[in-house]
């Protein structure tokens, strides 16, 4: 392995894992599996956060009154399909969390991606953005699980953070592009949907305290801030995953804090992807350091001793 200077936190881990010793490959695979479990845990959090509602809605109301719509094939109108699609990921995801392994990770990722896709095109779930972010995050998880073995862990470390950023950016690009319309830029859509209609805090209090002009101004400011924030998150794809994934996590947590905890059902899977991508990066740095140490020991040409390299805060 040459002791050249790869970009920090991006490529070194994969190169060393791909061409390194069996021990390095095994360590890389461990890293990928750890990243997978962290991402899966947040994916499951998002899936479960609205469980009390989904238990009533998918488990009771959908059976009590089924819908019939000419667009949908029978299977995607059947309440049993949506009920099963909501439950299978709980079992498959739980299995992958408590019985870790490459095979269980692949099985779980395939199951939860397929179930999110089913709910996304089912009459009982098509409108919930939870299933959209769960689907795209599931694709990333499936890709990661396919690369969780010793042979392919290097590829996961090299491409995982960039693909994670791509998934997150895509979700917010869709959000911001669809709001590039006069009704959002003027704040009218937000004014009507939230400031006038919402019965939950803080909107009733705002209606009591503010004039119509004041509410409209607030709506305009919030609406433009939302469009710009989503645009910023989409634009992060142009930057290095090393800090862009961290920035994305903080911004997404901020969005949840500023709106409602229920939004975690939409953000949870994306937070999982960001967290998983960051874990791959962090371990890439450790791997990079180890690679440099190995190179220094092997070549004996380094200007500083191996021990100094290993403890250098600059690496």
């Amino acid at each position, binding site marked *: 392995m040459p002791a050249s200077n790869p970009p920090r936190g991006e490529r070194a881990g994969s190169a060393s894992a791909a061409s390194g010793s069996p021990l390095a490959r095994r360590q890389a695979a461990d890293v990928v599996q750890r990243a997978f479990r962290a991402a899966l845990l947040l994916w499951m959090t998002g899936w479960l956060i609205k469980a009390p509602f989904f238990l009533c809605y998918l488990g009771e*109301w959908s059976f009590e009154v089924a*819908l019939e719509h000419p667009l949908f094939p029978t299977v995607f109108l059947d309440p049993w399909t949506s009920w099963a699609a909501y439950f299978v990921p709980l079992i498959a995801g739980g299995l992958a969390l408590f019985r870790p392994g490459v095979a269980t990770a692949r099985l779980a990722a395939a199951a939860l991606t397929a179930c999110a896709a089913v709910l996304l095109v089912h009459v009982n779930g098509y409108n919930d*953005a939870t299933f959209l972010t769960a689907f795209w995050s599931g*694709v990333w998880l499936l890709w990661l699980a396919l690369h969780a073995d010793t*042979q392919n862990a290097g590829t996961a470390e090299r491409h995982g953070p960039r693909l994670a950023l791509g998934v997150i950016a895509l979700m917010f*690009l869709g959000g911001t592009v*669809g709001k590039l319309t006069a009704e959002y830029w003027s704040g009218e859509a937000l004014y009507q949907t939230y400031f006038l*209609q919402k019965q939950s805090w803080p909107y009733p209090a705002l209606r009591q305290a503010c004039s119509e002009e004041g509410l409209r101004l607030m709506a305009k400011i919030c609406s433009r801030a939302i469009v710009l924030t989503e645009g910023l998150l989409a634009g992060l794809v142009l930057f290095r995953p090393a800090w862009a994934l961290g920035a994305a996590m903080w911004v997404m947590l901020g969005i949840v804090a500023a709106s409602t905890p229920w939004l975690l059902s939409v953000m949870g899977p994306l937070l999982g992807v960001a967290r998983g991508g960051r874990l791959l990066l962090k371990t890439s740095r450790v791997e990079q350091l180890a690679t440099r140490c190995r190179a220094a020991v092997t070549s004996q040409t380094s200007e500083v001793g191996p021990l100094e390299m290993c403890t250098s805060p600059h690496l």
Partner: protein
Amino acid sequence: MKVTTATPAFYVLLSAAFASTLWLPFDPARQEALMSSRHLRAKSFPEWASLQLVPTMYNFANRTWISAEPLTPARLAAAAPLSETEFNRDPLGALAAGTYTCWMNHYPPRLITFGGLRRRLYRRGEPTYFCFQSRFRGQVVESHYLAVPHSGKLLFRAAAGESPDAGK
């Protein structure tokens, strides 16, 4: 799919989705197709399902009108804001009294399909009339539906109707 092809395939998928999303503001036909799909309208289910994968979280300016009577221009024009009524507490009582309208953050049909309102509409025992409208950069898509209770199911049927903007 082989592991060796999974990575380029994922990059291609993401790139295609990025390009498709970025192209939306410049393609009126695509805007119409996407807004129609959010009203549960498409030429076929596979086409609709493929549009569902396009990320459009909380997109477009969306409104819904709901009434126990056919949505004539007069009823659409006189619709009361749903938030200012007892609709949440007693939708059937409210429906008996008039026509209502509200803005939705996305997917206007979810007012009926998602959550518990479908049970109340079923118990009503009579058809309920809906109009959905979505706007994006001057494009407007409108859909009229009839929800009919029948044998344990709520049947969605396309209905004829006037545009809510006809009288403006």
